[in-house]
């Protein structure tokens, strides 16, 4: 864009008499340059970022919403939404007794500690375990190691060069419809930078649980691991999350330089809607990692149990020679939930390796789709991929679909794909019931066994919770 055009736009803004009222609590409905300017002004962003947002918006306005996924939902009116709202403080409750008993029951089933239950439901925490002070301790440890871990807005303020260098370098705003939308109006998110040679001293999940921030509906995450650095990051929480925003369009970008490794785990348990399929979150996310350096590694692990609709493909671009990409996924859909999820492994470098392991569980009237692409480019000599996706059907009215794409342009590549779909084996069920388990216990045990290999990839404390989560999610669907 030329500077003349920028000036024209600036003038036009005045012509319409728009004032960026910094005190506004809610942006007017709809999507326009004014709204994007308002968001940017609210966050006190530098000009280059505003320009980037505006570029994304202009591109977004030329796009048509994609209709190819195996999902059914009413049309979304993108002009009938607020794209910015001041973060609302959670109502403070006096004690856990005021929390919705249904949510409390779920907390108990998941085995979440009382203190954490209080924090998650917004109960005033007593002074003995002050989460803020714990967070501060963590922050100090990270700072000593040289790790930068902060909100996206803080990163823009404090590390603008890093943000500018890497923002959009993996998922550009021209990437897809929802990435363009996110780039134009992203609210906040996380920024993480691990300098060369540093092994992040703690699982960033631990920190995150203490300091779960309200990041809004258009989240943006950027994680950079420099040469030889490594980090494990966990997004989300097993606890059920209630959120008033129905559409979530997040973007996550990971960059791993030479010998770096990033492990990104997601546990997603957003509101899936009621038993009749009313309400629930639409989770339309673009997640992609770039193994930019040689011998780098990016690993995605996801446990998706929530949201009315999940639509995401955490992908890896294997650019560096000998780089490794992994994708481990458990997606559970019950009632009227829908999921269209999977991964893309793009092999560019020599001797790149990728593993895909996907477990889909469909119950009730749900539709669960695995969609994946393994692409071996001409340059990827000696590339190797192994893919397995298994689906489990519980009940006669649900659906499980597998849509893999394998594209090989190199004769030295070795690619294997296998998949199976079946219901819970009668024999296994019979065996368990014979030993005195109820049908529901037996089914849960079998389902957990089915997901085992993926749970093994989760950070330890989450693996335990994920098993409990599976039981809660499938409650009433089996037996």
């Amino acid at each position: 864009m030329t500077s003349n055009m920028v000036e024209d736009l600036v003038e036009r803004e005045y012509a319409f008499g728009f004032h960026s009222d910094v005190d506004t609590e809610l942006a007017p409905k709809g999507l326009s340059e004014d709204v994007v300017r308002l968001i940017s002004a609210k966050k006190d962003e530098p000009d280059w970022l505003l320009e980037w947002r505006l570029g994304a918006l202009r591109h977004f306005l030329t796009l048509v919403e994609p209709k190819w996924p195996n999902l059914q939902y009413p049309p979304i009116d993108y002009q009938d939404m607020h794209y910015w709202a001041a973060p609302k403080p959670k109502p403070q409750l006096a004690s856990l007794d005021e929390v919705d008993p249904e949510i409390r029951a779920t907390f108990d089933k998941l085995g979440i500690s009382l203190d954490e239950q209080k924090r998650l439901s917004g109960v005033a925490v007593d002074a003995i375990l002050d989460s803020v002070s714990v967070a501060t301790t963590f922050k100090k440890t990270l700072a000593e190691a040289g790790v930068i871990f902060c909100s996206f807005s803080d990163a823009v303020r404090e590390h603008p060069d890093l943000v500018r260098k890497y923002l959009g370098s993996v998922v550009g705003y021209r990437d897809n419809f929802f990435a363009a939308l996110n780039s134009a109006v992203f609210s906040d998110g996380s920024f993480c930078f691990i300098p060369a040679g540093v092994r992040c001293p703690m699982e960033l999940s631990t920190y995150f649980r203490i300091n779960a921030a309200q990041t809004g509906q258009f989240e943006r995450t950027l994680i950079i691991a420099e040469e030889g650095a490594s980090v494990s990051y966990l997004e989300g929480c097993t606890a059920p999350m209630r959120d008033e925003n129905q559409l979530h369009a997040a973007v996550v970008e990971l960059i791993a330089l030479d010998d770096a490794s990033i492990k990104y785990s997601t546990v997603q348990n957003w509101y899936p809607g009621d038993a009749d399929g009313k309400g629930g979150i639409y989770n339309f996310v673009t997640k992609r990692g770039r193994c930019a350096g040689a011998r780098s590694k990016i690993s995605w692990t996801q446990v998706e149990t929530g949201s009315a609709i999940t639509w995401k493909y955490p992908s890896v671009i294997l650019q560096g020679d000998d780089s490794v990409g992994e994708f481990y996924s458990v997606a559970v859909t019950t009632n009227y939930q829908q999921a269209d999820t999977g991964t893309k492994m793009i092999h560019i470098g020599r001797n790149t390796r990728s593993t895909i392991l996907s477990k889909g569980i469909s119950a009730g009237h749900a539709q669960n789709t695995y969609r994946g692409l393994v692409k071996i480019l001409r340059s990827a000599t000696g590339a190797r991929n192994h893919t397995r996706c298994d689906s489990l059907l519980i009940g006669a009215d649900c659906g499980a679909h597998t849509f893999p794409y394998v594209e090989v342009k190199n004769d030295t590549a070795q690619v294997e794909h296998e998949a199976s779909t079946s219901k819970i084996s009668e024999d296994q069920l019979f065996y368990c019931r014979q030993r005195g388990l109820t049908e529901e216990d037996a089914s849960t045990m079998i389902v957990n066994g089915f997901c085992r290999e993926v749970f093994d990839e989760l950070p330890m404390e989450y693996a335990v919770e994920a098993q409990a989560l599976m039981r809660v999610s499938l409650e009433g669907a089996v037996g």
Partner: protein
Amino acid sequence: MSVTAHAPIPTERDERWHYAPLDEINARMERSVAPCGDVPTSVTPMLIDAMVGATGARLVFVNGMHTAELSDCHQLPAGVRCDVSNTSGGGGPPVATVTVDEGVRFEEPLRVVHVAVPDADAVKSLLSRARTIIELGTDAHAVVVETFGGLDGSRASTMTESSTTIRLGDRAELAYYRIQIEALDATHVGHTLIDQGADSSVGMTSVTLGGDIARNAIHVHLDGPGARADLAGIAVTGGHQRHDTVVTIDHAASRCTSNQRFNGVVDDHGRGAFSGEIVVQPGTTGTDAHQSSRNLVLDPNAEADARPWLRILADDVRCTHGATVGRLDDDALHYLRSRGIPLVAARAMLIDAFLRNVTDSIAHEAVRAHVAALVTSAASEASEASTRATRPAWPVEHP
């Protein structure tokens, strides 16, 4: 009837056409003209014999026109008929109809042969349409071989658009072989639709060797409970060929079984694609469906694509699929070479074995021998082409 019979004109956004060069097919179709005039003298009974590898009952079409002097359907037993009918209105192409009446079992292969011959004088390619209907009554049994052959072009090539419809009555059994050996500059867009009654069974083997662009779509509609479909196929894609095999198996009734085994070999600049889809409709029970796609890439410039899909809307199912893409096994190659077999021959042997794995299950002996000969010659051609092109895996052998 199945959905594809009424499908709209495909666009590049149509997933079933994902790997087909649709624009190029359309452009070629635009540039083609309908054939007219007499049967070229180059097409002789001997040529047809060589093309199908046998004599016997057959219907022969040259450029979409029925050629009575090359056909032979006089000595068929009662209840077995091979006819040619023109579609109403007279504008459409003649239709080959193979009918086997209720309860009749006929073990000899019935052949339908379509030969595409380019116009020696013309610049434009000839577009011919091939229509075949195969109908088996209740408890009937038949073996049908449909061959798409062609002659090499002068300046112009040929384009064939084929449609084969197969209807099986209850408990009917059909062995159906589809062999496409058109010229290497030909364009072939084929569609096979199979509708199956209760407890009927079809064993289909498709062989795709010819054509510059060739699309082979197979749609099986398992309409009656207990129906069974066994599909096998091979494709050898070399030169600048583009082969696209698209299989859909629609489990619309309970207790149906389907099995797909497709092997592909790509070498030189060839691009071979396999798309398979198993659909299990809601409300069905006892479904058993398997699919396997194995692909061999022989040349750094070749490309193999696989898209094995499952779309399952019922829970009482056992569905599996597997897809692999790889190269020749170095150990096997080493074993053969250590026993003094030259590289080209060793590679040809392994490619042949890879393909025969699929075609060896052809039940009819004469058909199996004919297909085996085709496969062996395709394997040795692929081996020669790729051995020339690829760098040796270890030090070059002594002269």
